[in-house]
């Protein structure tokens, strides 16, 4: 299990509590484990290059690894877990291995990927990509009080099962604000916590994430709004530090890879 870094302790404690009475141990391996993500359409080609160099050796063919699946393997004979996952909305992989070997894998990816445009990317890049892809993030769109249906994540919970931990909190909450996408005019970003206004200027929601979308050329934001204002096409406004910027409810994701 890989938790959002900010949730490491909460996830560990919750699992440890649940494991009580079962023949299960829960370990937190975070401090010993490194994660390197390589994201984008060229990701598979770059890892193939490392396979050709006899450095990366997956236990089964990379090309057969489906989205959100993992396989085991080695890098320079050190165990590595290869997951076809990421939080960018693009194809890509996340590679888990011990801290000591991680810098060497990083350099190998950088060298093998140089001709394919691989560059180091920071958190702001990742955050812009996941926003364009309409992916909710803990601390922004998601919190301990958020219900899955509110955040557009109803599909990840199978309510046909009679009983499971957290079932009550997975049920949609009547009248609760729902997550929508907003497209804004101009160039100024609607940032987290800015109020969302109806045409009369009444606050009907709050922005959770926003940026000027590099791909689309206009600002995009995710916001929780009252259900009455959540229909695609609804004209709203965002209070950007005292100025109301026109915004329209649009379908998520803002951008989908082709």
């Amino acid at each position, binding site marked *: 299990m890989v938790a959002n870094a900010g949730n490491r302790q909460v996830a560990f404690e919750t699992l440890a509590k649940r494991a009580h009475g079962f023949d299960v141990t829960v370990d937190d391996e975070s401090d010993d484990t490194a994660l390197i993500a390589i994201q984008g359409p060229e990701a598979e080609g770059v890892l193939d290059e490392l396979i050709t160099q006899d450095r990366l050796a997956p236990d089964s063919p990379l090309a057969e690894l489906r989205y959100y699946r993992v396989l085991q393997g080695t890098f320079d004979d050190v165990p590595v877990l290869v997951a076809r996952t990421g939080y960018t909305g693009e194809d890509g992989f996340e590679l888990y291995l011990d801290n000591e070997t991680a810098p060497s894998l990083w350099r190998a990816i950088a060298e093998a990927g140089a001709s394919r445009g691989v560059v180091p990317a920071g958190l702001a890049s990742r955050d812009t990509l996941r926003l364009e892809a309409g992916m909710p993030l803990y601390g922004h769109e998601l919190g301990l009080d958020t219900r899955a249906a509110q955040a557009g994540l109803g599909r990840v919970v199978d309510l046909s099962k009679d009983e499971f931990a957290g079932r009550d909190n997975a049920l949609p909450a009547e009248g609760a604000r729902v997550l929508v996408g907003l497209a804004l005019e*101009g*160039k*100024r970003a609607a*940032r987290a916590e800015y109020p969302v206004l109806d045409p009369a200027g009444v606050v009907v929601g709050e922005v959770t994430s926003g940026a*000027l979308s*590099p791909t689309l050329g206009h600002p995009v934001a995710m916001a929780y709004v009252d259900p009455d204002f959540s229909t695609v096409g609804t004209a709203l406004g965002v209070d950007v*530090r005292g100025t109301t910027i026109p915004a329209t409810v649009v379908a998520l994701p803002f951008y989908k890879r082709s």
Partner: protein
Amino acid sequence: MSDLTTLKYTAEHEWLLIDGGTATVGITDYAADKLGDVVYVDLPAVGTDVEAGKVVGEIESTKSVGELFAPVLGTVLAINDAVVDAPDLVNSSPFDDGWLIRITLSGDLPTLLSRDEYVALTAE
């Protein structure tokens, strides 16, 4: 480009061109580069009284929102309308076409940095 050694600087990354009783103010290339692509500039109205160190406007980039501080005591004599219409001038011409405000000075100038002192500051 202006001769950068004739300008004065602040630790808040502003430059000043002092000419008699007026000061033209902008932000440095260093600050513009750190901000990234500037998409919005909010400037004070002409006639506004300003005080050194007080926030008088904001500069928003794709990455963040930065505050514009008045570097001296005085009154806003003019603002650069061109930069309001085309905020990317802050990136493309920080020391010339990207100037922000012109202030009529009142009273004594505060301590300002020379080019060498400013460059030393940003090299840290």
